[in-house]
């Protein structure tokens, strides 16, 4: 599903963010990436969504070799990868319903199908009854769950969650993690980055630890170190 082969990323000024990273993630896996800030987690995710290009190395996601991926096909790649950001990136002047339907409108889904899909997705993340609220009227956890709803509405093969619990208290963080587990159970590959030791320890999933741009450990059912 996701294959990184000796990937290196140099930023012109800030030096090297990733050094020779090789990774393989299976379909329907739930992977947690941990590491201190500045370790290269965000860079790794940006390489996967093609916000950044690697300096060297090979990235193959879902059978697509990023080296031969044309710029004009990037939007179509991103439609297959759902991304949840730490700062939510919700549209403040659109309602909960519209924030989700927006992602479907972009891909040209018909109105009837959108009206049918959005409530289902909102039910999965537990936001039934909030359809007409604006993001500013939601709690942090609700906003993050809305962001997840938007990311999974198009049924992507891969869901990338970059520190989705970073801004949340532990109760809300758990709500978000439970939603991610549920989505993983439905068959989506989930890549989660987090600082939260408790979450990592309780989840008992594959943990990849990154430090100074290198993988320092990769354990099938790991805890936080």
């Amino acid at each position, binding site marked *: 599903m996701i294959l990184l082969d000796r990937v290196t990323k140099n930023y012109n000024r800030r030096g090297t963010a990733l050094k020779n990273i090789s990774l393989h993630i299976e379909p329907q896996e739930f992977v947690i990436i941990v590491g201190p800030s500045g370790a290269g987690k965000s860079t790794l995710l940006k390489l996967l969504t093609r916000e950044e290009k690697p300096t060297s190395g090979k990235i193959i996601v879902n059978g697509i070799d990023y080296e031969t991926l044309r*710029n004009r096909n990037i*939007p179509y790649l991103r439609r297959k990868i759902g*991304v949840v950001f730490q700062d939510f*990136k919700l549209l403040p002047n659109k309602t909960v319903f519209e924030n989700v339907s927006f992602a479907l409108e*972009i891909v*040209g889904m*018909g109105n009837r199908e959108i009206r049918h899909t959005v409530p289902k997705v909102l039910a999965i993340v537990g936001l039934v009854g909030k359809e007409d609220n604006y993001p500013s009227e939601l709690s942090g956890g609700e906003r993050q769950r809305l962001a997840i709803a938007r990311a999974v509405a198009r049924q992507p093969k891969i869901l990338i969650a970059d520190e989705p619990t970073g801004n949340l208290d532990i109760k809300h963080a758990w709500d978000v993690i439970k939603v991610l587990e549920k989505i993983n159970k439905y068959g989506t590959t989930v890549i989660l980055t987090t600082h939260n030791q408790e979450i990592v320890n309780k989840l008992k999933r594959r943990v990849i630890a990154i430090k100074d741009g290198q993988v320092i450990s990769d354990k099938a059912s790991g805890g936080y170190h």
Partner: protein
Amino acid sequence: MRSKLITLRRIIIAGCKDFSRNSWLSVAAIAVMVVALIMITLTLVLNITARNAISELSKNLKVSVYLKDDAPQSQINKMRQEFYTNPYVADVQYISKDQAQEKFVNSFQKDQKLLEGLALIGGNALPASIDVSVRDLSQIQDVGNIAKQSKYKNIVDSVSLGKTDARKTIDRAAAAQRYITMASLVAAIIFGVVSMLIIFNTIRMAIFSRGEEIKIMKLIGATPGYIRGPFLIEAGLYGVVAGVIAAGVVLSLVYSLGGKVASQAEFAPTYQYLTQPSIIAVLFAGSILLGILLGVMSSTFAMEKHLKLKHW
């Protein structure tokens, strides 16, 4: 296919929403564009008017050879032949005494007193004539000299080279036409550039104010066309609105000013030409298309510069 149509519809709706959302900026952009479009269409209208007026005036410039009543037909034919063979002559028309009478009565139909006076004289006092129109006004003297030759002395009564003051009028009209064309062309270019700059700025502001939204759209997989489309629609709408207003203003100018001078012979055909339904339709369509072109071009420039879609 169906999803493409849905997408197109969404882009158009989004563009219309942006258009009404930025209403104050829109007003500024449309106002300047209206001025530019009025300048451009007025240049055209004035040009047509001046050109038609000149050609109408030129029609009056003919060599009229008035014939003696007792001139033999064979001699007259000989002179007509000579006019015909001259390379500068456009047309030769023989007007008999009866035709001259008829024309005179027709053109003075409103002046009953004059007609009564004419009837009082009795008979036909008007001479037969040959009207010769020339291709080139500068040759009118030479053409006139043909009739002044001594061999035609006994059939020619007099030779008239049109209205002498008409030539001056034509020269002045031609000079005015050149001047008007130049001045309005310069004004049109200036206002065209100003309106492009203002639309450029309007779209730039719209891009900046929606920067976050655009970034999110890119991240969740919107194509560049989906992001650009609404801006193009918005700028195109400026063009449509400005085009309709500008054409309306020019048309009302044609009706109000043209109506006053339409009775004059040199403006009558132009007025008729410009107020035909087909020409009005062309005026509106042309002005709208030009407006759309101005809008789309300037918004494209703004997007090239400020919408960083190349770095995906």
